[in-house]
């Protein structure tokens, strides 16, 4: 099967220091392919560059060398409109569930913002919101609350709902459950699995928990000092 999203020899060097720049190599020649309907697990110690690789693949950071290839084309060469298409097709869900929503907006506002972004007519908003809430297993009564008034698992589901509204092909999951209780973790992982079955999503699952990765992923890679190795 053709890879939708591909990292081709991606390197990332962080520079710090004001005058005397020090360089630190975060990623070195990393190549990775993501396909529809498959989950790739990515493991590594904290600070090994897992999140950086995720952000590069999601187009949120630029690689220092190498390229990210979306449906056969380098994303740095895409025109604005094509880049937007890439943006929507590749979504990222972050670790910190309570921080992934604007604390000053109600859940409903956060969802509606996305609906207006993808130019859904206002008359369909309510229906679409309830639809996506059902998909991720949330009840309607949460809509009027603020992010700090719902639990971590619910926040994570709202973040997922927002991402799913864009009909992505690939979702990059950065430690989606490590801040959650074990029972909620089990719920979210199973939800992710079901969504993959229904919608044929491709996942890159970044996690430091081997159990989570082996539960979800068909293939597992390990990042160590910026180098990627395949693990059994």
């Amino acid at each position, binding site marked *: 099967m053709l890879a939708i999203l591909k990292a081709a020899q991606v390197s990332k060097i962080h520079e710090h220091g004001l005058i005397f720049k020090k360089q630190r190599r975060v990623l070195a020649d990393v190549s990775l392919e993501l396909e529809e309907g498959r989950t790739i697990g990515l493991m590594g110690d904290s600070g090994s560059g897992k999140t950086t690789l995720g952000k590069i693949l999601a187009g949120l950071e630029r690689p220092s060398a190498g390229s990210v290839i979306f449906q056969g084309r380098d994303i740095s060469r895409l025109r604005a409109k094509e880049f937007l298409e890439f943006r929507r097709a590749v979504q990222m869900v972050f670790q910190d569930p309570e921080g992934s929503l604007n604390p000053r907006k109600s859940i409903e506002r956060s969802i509606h913002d996305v609906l207006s972004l993808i130019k859904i007519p206002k008359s369909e908003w309510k229906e679409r919101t309830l639809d996506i809430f059902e998909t991720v297993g949330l009840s309607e009564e949460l809509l009027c609350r603020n992010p700090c008034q719902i*639990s*971590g*698992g619910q926040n994570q589901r709202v973040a997922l709902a927002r991402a799913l509204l864009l009909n992505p092909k690939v979702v990059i999951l950065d430690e989606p459950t490590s801040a959650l209780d074990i*029972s909620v*973790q089990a719920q979210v992982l199973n939800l992710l699995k079901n969504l993959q079955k229904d919608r044929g999503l491709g996942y890159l699952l970044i996690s430091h*928990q081997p159990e989570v990765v082996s539960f979800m992923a068909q293939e597992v890679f390990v990042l160590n000092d910026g180098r990627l190795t395949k693990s059994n």
Partner: protein
Amino acid sequence: MSMCHDMNAPILQVVGLSVRFETPLGLVHAAEDVAFDIHETETLALVGETGCGKSVVASAIMQLLPGNAVVDGKALFSKMDLLKLEEKEISRIRGNEISIIFQNPSLSLNPIIEVGEQIAEPLQVHRKMARRESHHVAKGLLSRLGLGERSLMSMYPFQFSGGMNQRVMIATSMILSPKIIIADEPTKGLDRALARDVAAEICKVMDLTGASLLLITHDISLAGMISDRIAVMYCGEIVEMGKCKEVLGEPLHPYTRALLDCLPERGFKPIPGASPSMIHPPQGCKFHPRCPHKTQECMQKQRIRKIDGDGRQVRCWQY
């Protein structure tokens, strides 16, 4: 881990503790009818999910709750009811006889005071010890925790790693050799390997000093590793309590069983539904909306509790 507690009278006895918060949204039933004993040198783990009220129990015992909390019940500690003590008396007990290890070590330590001084300070305040002497004691304690180098005493918390800071926290709470230590999620936010280290650290300290430990955690496998007895909390109530091996080996309450099924080694089987609201908790057994074995009885009546001979108890109609 110590096992010689069976004969002794409990060192801390909590009876019928309930905590409610008055909030603009309504009355929050954070803890209801919580009862447990802690014996000398014993470790009791209070296990439950986020927001089930387990930290509230600890804060209530130490009178550390905000002003809008309404506390009922008793917490008997050396013939005193901790819940009824004046602020002056309870603050003498805090740290001196019962101490707390807080969640976030890097936030609980003062960033601009040397680590050694922070550990030694309680000695100077509570025991009126001279500075030099107190530092000597502090150094001895730190070296028992594996931070023996002389230079470490004059370093600052930001120069330490999270695990080292956690050890410093443990040392500050140990320095007055309290009878009970309350550890409130001591491993939260640490990655797995570090969490195990910290757990081992706490165990070692318990063995060293012979203090009792009330461990509050959401990590049921951590509780299994270091505690003698486990109390499982759900929605403000202790639903099951008993010896560690028994509770984890043959769980009785459906919630305990479901919680254990969520563990990675059992394949992440989720519990259906969500935790109930603590403002409007369900009637009858609080777990019944999510319970596979629920009967008419569970939905209507208050649950009963059954206590076996050796302190095992469970809140369920099945037994």
